[in-house]
């Protein structure tokens, strides 16, 4: 019997494990003692009210806080059992294995093709034929290929917002990460583009572990296998998505869920 409990079901292998995670901006503690296990090839949704620390938590998982002056991360984050904050670990390799899609599409001011193959090129792929294959495969996987196949050399900035976001997903897929972090990837998009991205996430979990922040509880319910609820810098509750939405154990989770839809 799978109960709503902090760790995922025991049968599932953990891809990432977060233990006693504290995150500070200067002296302000934005995340307190968070613990979470993320099973391999599943979708984990992070929900909670604005400002509760979802982005803060997510950015700790690929060492994005290294880029923020004043941000400090304490505790343990493991990928396949290896602590990504260990001194011997190069954050660049961590980000190679754990990709990230941001809330606002952020294509580079380059052509569509150059955007997709950016990561592959950086990681040493030079063969033009291979790069073209990578571009097609990634754009297909991101459900963008048919829309852009005739204009790969056009600027990525000419695409619509939804297309740009799928391009950013394709760009992440092209480096073949193992985990994909998404911070409200559909928040700037219209319903059609949103549903395309949601379908895409459903596809992705066959090959990838996906951790996604979302403001929409329907979205979390539609796309995720597991859901974790954050409040005021604390991770309150984790469970299967159906448990969290139908039988939350914590009163605060219940208040949040019913507060919006009750």
């Amino acid at each position, binding site marked *: 019997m799978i109960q709503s409990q902090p760790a995922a079901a025991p049968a599932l292998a953990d891809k990432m494990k977060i233990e006693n995670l504290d995150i500070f901006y200067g002296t302000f503690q934005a995340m307190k003692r968070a613990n979470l296990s993320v099973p391999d090839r599943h979708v984990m949704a992070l929900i909670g009210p604005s400002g509760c620390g979802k982005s803060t938590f997510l950015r700790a998982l690929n060492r*994005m806080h290294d880029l923020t002056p004043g941000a400090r991360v304490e505790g343990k984050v493991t990928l396949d059992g290896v602590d990504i904050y260990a001194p011997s670990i190069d954050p660049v390799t961590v*980000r190679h*294995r754990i990709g990230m899609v941001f809330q606002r599409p952020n294509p*580079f001011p380059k052509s569509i093709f150059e955007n997709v193959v950016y990561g592959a090129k950086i990681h040493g792929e030079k063969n033009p034929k291979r790069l073209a294959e990578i571009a097609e495969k990634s754009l297909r996987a991101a459900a963008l290929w048919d829309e852009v196949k005739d204009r790969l050399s056009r600027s990525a900035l000419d695409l619509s917002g939804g297309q740009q976001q799928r391009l950013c997903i394709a760009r992440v897929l092209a480096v073949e990460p193992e985990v994909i972090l998404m911070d409200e990837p559909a928040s700037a998009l219209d319903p059609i583009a949103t549903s395309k991205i949601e379908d895409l996430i459903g596809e992705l979990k066959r090959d990838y572990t996906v951790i996604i922040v979302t403001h929409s509880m329907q979205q979390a319910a539609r796309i995720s296998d597991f859901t974790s609820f954050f409040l005021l810098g604390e991770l309150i509750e984790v469970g299967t998505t159906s448990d969290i939405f139908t039988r939350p154990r914590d009163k605060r989770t219940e208040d949040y869920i019913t507060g919006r839809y009750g």
Partner: protein
Amino acid sequence: MVGVRASKAHRDEGIALVVLMSCSALFVIAIALILGFLAFNGTRLFWGDHYSPLKFLFGTDWDGFGGHYGAATFIAGSLVATGMAIAIGGPLGVAIGVFFSELAPKRVATAFKPAIEVLVGIPSVVYGWLGLTLLVPAIATVFHLPDGDGLLAAGIVLSIMILPTVISLSEDALRVVPNSLREGSAALGATRWETITKVLLPSASSGIAVAVILGVARAIGETLAVQLVLGNAAILPTSLLKPAAALTSEIVMDMGDAPDGSGFKHALFAMAFLLLLISMGLILLIRLALRRRT
């Protein structure tokens, strides 16, 4: 009462408008007069004295009183000195701009930015004087020459003079690149260096182009500092260690001697006009670079 006040405000506004418009008109007229004067006198050598423009541009024979007005040595001197300034100051300035914008801790960057802006304002005679007292003897010693003045000295002095401009503007160009691009690149597993070379510099390229072009404009128009260290010999620049002359420095050297209305004077005007055309061309380039950004 209200009506009176309104109409008074209306009248004041009308007066202000007239004053502003006449100021602008005066300014435009003054600029047009200067340009017209330079164009008239700067081409007079060709239509008044019937001196061949080709001989002026490509001739190396310069004898103001003897009727030989080949300015090629000065043109070449200006171009080589400017080229050296850009070759040294361009990459160095952009590199330092990258350092301040991307690599230096915030405290260091905020402390150095005003210092660099002060350097922009140092009068050129100071740079020339420093070049003459420090750089010229150093070059003479290093290369075992009787005299160290020449193109190398001028190129180095100019490169130092344009550095603050290039640093400050390329730093600005990099700072306006949105942070989301830095994060996007890092999130794909790029190193800081890869992010700088593959995303940030290309994104800031038009702003950096403007920084370099303004450096060129400053270098080619620089007079005093060049005159102090260039040696001022009207010979073609065959060696960086030899003295040379530039358009600007030669105008200053000769303008007192050339009699009014003479071909000599007109040749100097033609050189000044040429400098004007070059800087207008550079401004056009800047406009193109900025247009490309949008």
